[in-house]
């Protein structure tokens, strides 16, 4: 075993080990826990960075462990894995800082941070999975790890939301399971190899291939919150703010979207998927979900619920982009994985700050909040405008690539969907921004709720959204740079289309 073989495993374990240690620490051992958490998060980020540098010079990072015949545990670094692992590890660090501030003084912190770390382990594992089985293992592991976070507050409402969450995700996992087993029986163990293993089966087993594609798609669509399987997401909003931020930007929903990308590009391969003609249902459902989620978001008065429906809508950009064959569209889909993550986590951090410092949860109560929380609302504005697709924020880049890709593929109706969605985004985001900055604050109310802090939220809550908002701008503004998410997405797509 060389160093390069161990690195992927160390990246995954850099959050698992602190997580396990945290369970054995005393509840009051705050300082040790914080140090462990931050050390793990930093280590993970540094390792991912090192691997990125090595990967660019052609190093191969691969860890394998044969569990039994046809069942291999494999972690491998490729460009797509790096993109998602980078996103998870960067946002984990930021969210950890946020969570430490958010939970200051509350109980059951040991449990929260323990499961939080385990959750990130699952998410990194999903990123680095080198074959379908490993992906499935971590995909299910994620379900288990997030459940205690969803029900963390222990209220009846949270427990009910947890039940709902499990109902969807365990169901989806079971469907995915049968798909994975079926495909393995049909074609042997499935590596992520752009469909090289499956294309030989096209002549004899086209029906089985199609069926299994749809089965797995349904399993993944649950976590990716594609209509009509999105129901768990808005309900899961009862979770604490750092969890919502993590669930909605990185861990759970992205696992689904990432899985769909892996399924289309790496399991079946884009050529086989086009030949089997299996992508159009995904395109139609994705397009419908984009509009549906936005329309539902307009009518939510609860800020987190509005953001949740917005997530439902935005995630389907990824599914839609993956469903349209063509390099430009694929680039849009993959880069939106990162862009949506950055912008949405900013919005959820801000929503958490508003609730923490002023106790407000409703959109209709936010008049003049910009005066109380100017920096928070500044970050919120960046995120919201990015979601609408305003240049130079990251969201613009995604939408541009998706639209051009749709035209390139001869499917102009998608452009109409994207434009409609932007308009709807504006309808539900702009009133918040307007109210926050330009309306008069209520005569009495939030201004007196927390008199001790006269200006803004504590720095641990304020710093994370500012950083992610900054990233949202820079990854849009400097999209042409060689280190930007867009450039990495292009590398991935070139490999998908040319290096078969």
């Amino acid at each position: 075993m060389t160093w390069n073989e161990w690195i992927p495993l160390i990246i995954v374990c850099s959050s698992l080990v602190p997580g396990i240690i945290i369970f054995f620490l005393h509840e009051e051992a705050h300082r040790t826990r914080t140090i462990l958490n931050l050390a793990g998060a930093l280590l993970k980020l540094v390792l991912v960075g090192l691997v990125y540098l090595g990967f660019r010079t052609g190093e191969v990072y691969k860890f394998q462990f044969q569990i039994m015949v046809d069942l291999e545990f494999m972690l491998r670094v490729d460009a797509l894995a790096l993109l998602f692992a980078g996103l998870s590890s960067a946002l984990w660090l930021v969210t950890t800082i946020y969570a430490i501030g958010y939970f200051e003084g509350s109980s059951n912190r040991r449990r929260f941070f323990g499961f939080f770390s385990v959750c990130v382990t699952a998410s990194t594992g999903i990123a680095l999975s080198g074959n379908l089985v490993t992906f499935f293992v971590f995909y299910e592991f994620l379900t288990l790890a997030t459940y205690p976070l969803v029900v963390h507050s222990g209220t009846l409402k949270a427990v009910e939301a947890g039940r709902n969450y499990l109902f969807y995700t365990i169901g989806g996992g079971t469907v995915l399971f049968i798909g994975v087993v079926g495909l393995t029986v049909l074609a042997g163990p499935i590596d992520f190899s752009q469909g090289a293993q499956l294309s030989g089966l096209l002549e004899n087993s086209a029906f089985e291939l199609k069926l299994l594609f749809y089965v797995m798609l349904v399993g993944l669509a649950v976590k990716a919150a594609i209509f009509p399987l999105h129901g768990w997401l808005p309900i899961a909003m009862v979770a604490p703010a750092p969890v919502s931020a993590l669930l909605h930007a990185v861990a759970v929903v992205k696992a689904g979207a990432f899985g769909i990308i892996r399924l289309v590009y790496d399991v079946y391969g884009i050529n086989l998927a086009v030949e089997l003609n299996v992508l159009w249902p995904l395109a139609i459902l994705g397009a419908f979900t984009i509009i549906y989620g936005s329309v539902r978001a307009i009518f939510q008065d609860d800020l987190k619920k509005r953001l949740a429906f917005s997530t439902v809508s935005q995630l389907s950009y990824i599914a839609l982009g993956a469903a349209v064959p063509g390099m430009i569209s694929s680039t849009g889909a993959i880069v939106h994985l990162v862009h949506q993550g950055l912008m949405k986590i900013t919005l959820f951090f801000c929503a958490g700050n508003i609730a923490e410092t002023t106790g407000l949860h409703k959109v209709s109560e936010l008049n003049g909040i910009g005066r109380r929380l100017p920096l928070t609302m500044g970050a919120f504005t960046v995120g919201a405008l990015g979601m609408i697709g305003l240049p130079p924020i990251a969201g613009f880049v995604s939408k541009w690539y998706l639209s051009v890709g749709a035209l390139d593929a001869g499917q102009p109706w998608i452009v109409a969907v994207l434009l409609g969605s932007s308009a709807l985004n504006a309808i539900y985001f702009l009133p918040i921004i307007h109210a926050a900055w330009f309306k008069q604050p209520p005569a009495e109310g939030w201004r007196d709720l927390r008199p001790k802090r006269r200006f803004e939220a504590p720095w641990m809550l304020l710093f994370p959204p500012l950083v992610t908002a900054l990233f949202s701008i820079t990854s849009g503004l400097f999209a042409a740079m060689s280190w930007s998410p867009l450039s990495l997405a292009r590398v991935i797509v070139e490999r998908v289309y040319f290096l078969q």
Partner: protein
Amino acid sequence: MSALWQADNLPVWLVVWPTFGAIVLFLLPARWRGMTGVSFALANGVLALVTVFFVMEVGVLRQEIGGWAPPLGIALALDGLSALFILMTAVVGGVVSVYAKIYFTQVVVDSARSSLFWPLWLFLWAGLHGLYLANDLFNLYVVIEVIGIAAVALAVLSGKTRAMIAGLRYLIAAVAGSLAYLMGVALLYGSTGVLDIDLMAERLEPGLTTRVAIALMLGGLLVKTAVFPLHFWLPPAHSSAEPPVSAILSALVLKGTFFVILRLWTELFGVSLTFMAGQMVGVLGACAVVWGSFQALRQERLKLVVAHSSVAQIGYLFLLFPLITVPATAVAGGFEWAPLAWSGAVYQVLAHGFAKAAFFLAIGVLVMATGNDHKASMLNMVGRLPMTTFAIGLAGVSLIGLPPSGGFLAKWMLLSAIISSGQWWWVPFVLVGSLMTAGYVFMILRLAFAPSQHEAELKSVPRGLQVCALLLAVGAILIAFPAEWVIDLLEGTSTFGEVVRAGAPVNSGEVGP
């Protein structure tokens, strides 16, 4: 005397040592039994390790006792399958013994009564070893009886009315089961004149007598394994026993008779089995999966949930038989799923053994802390008994079959085998079973996170008990990793190697039992 120390005598030692332990424990005064019992259990563990190493090095061992070859003498056979079961018994039994030691010194007042646990448990252990090693139908009958009687006695150890009633039912079922088995054996003995399994397999001819005999033996064993619809005795018996006893009954005793069915089905019944016979057993298993899970979902008391869950989990084991019993014509193109089905079922045995024992031990902790096992006693446990809640969670993960766990591997292998055998009609049962299992596991876990209205003070529970439950639960997860080693070991098994691998295990056209 020196001959006894030779490695060839290992099978004899495996039976003699726990029997000796049982007698010593019976003679000792009550207050010394706990410590001595644990020592004997640990010694059993060492013996099991030696056995496994031996089988890995040497392979199948057949020993003719006293040098008398069958049909005159009796033979013991030790192969990969027996070694694996012996190892599982040692690990699960060892942890349960430590738990029992702590539990009975802490909880039970009447020590004269509760200390009877130790001799009975060691007798049971000796019986199980005999069962794994017996190569002779009559010996099998004897050890099945020993196990049955010891198990019933253990089940009524607490002396509570509920346990006594359940124990009586258990006794009736056990005796009826062994009598049916014995009648079948008598018929086969009458027609072949031998009892040794290998010799009988050579002489057995298909025919009415054989079919009736197989039906009787199988029926008797199915009762004792609590296969739907013959499972009526299991939930009350398992749920009313003391926690360590429940763990032993569900993790080990049920698996004993499954072991016998597996052995006889593949090594002896082969010639007379038909496709339909396999399918019928499979249907019973599938019904057990659905019915057991459904009943588990409806229970109000935790021990009953777990007991009904055993009915369902045992059901999965019986999906093996339709997969390895197919017409010769159907396997012309290869029979490659048989080893997979085989190791899948064995993995299900291991995973259920660990997970279910952990579950019962954890609920024992809960009962000690709260005084009852109603579902509501789980409320808000995640904060108050985190280690036990975690143990229940891990055991539940394995029962559901979520990765990474032994249960996951078992489901993976069974499902792969089902799909590649083309018997796709079993797929929905496996999936629905998983979903329903998730239903009752999370029904319990959900409560652990929910707030409770009026919280009674918890009685303190020794940490050792919680650790034992957690150890077994972690075991249910960890057994996923040495899968390749386990399958290698199984390949040394005579059945696995010859009958299953070669294909064409049944004589098509015959009408089965």
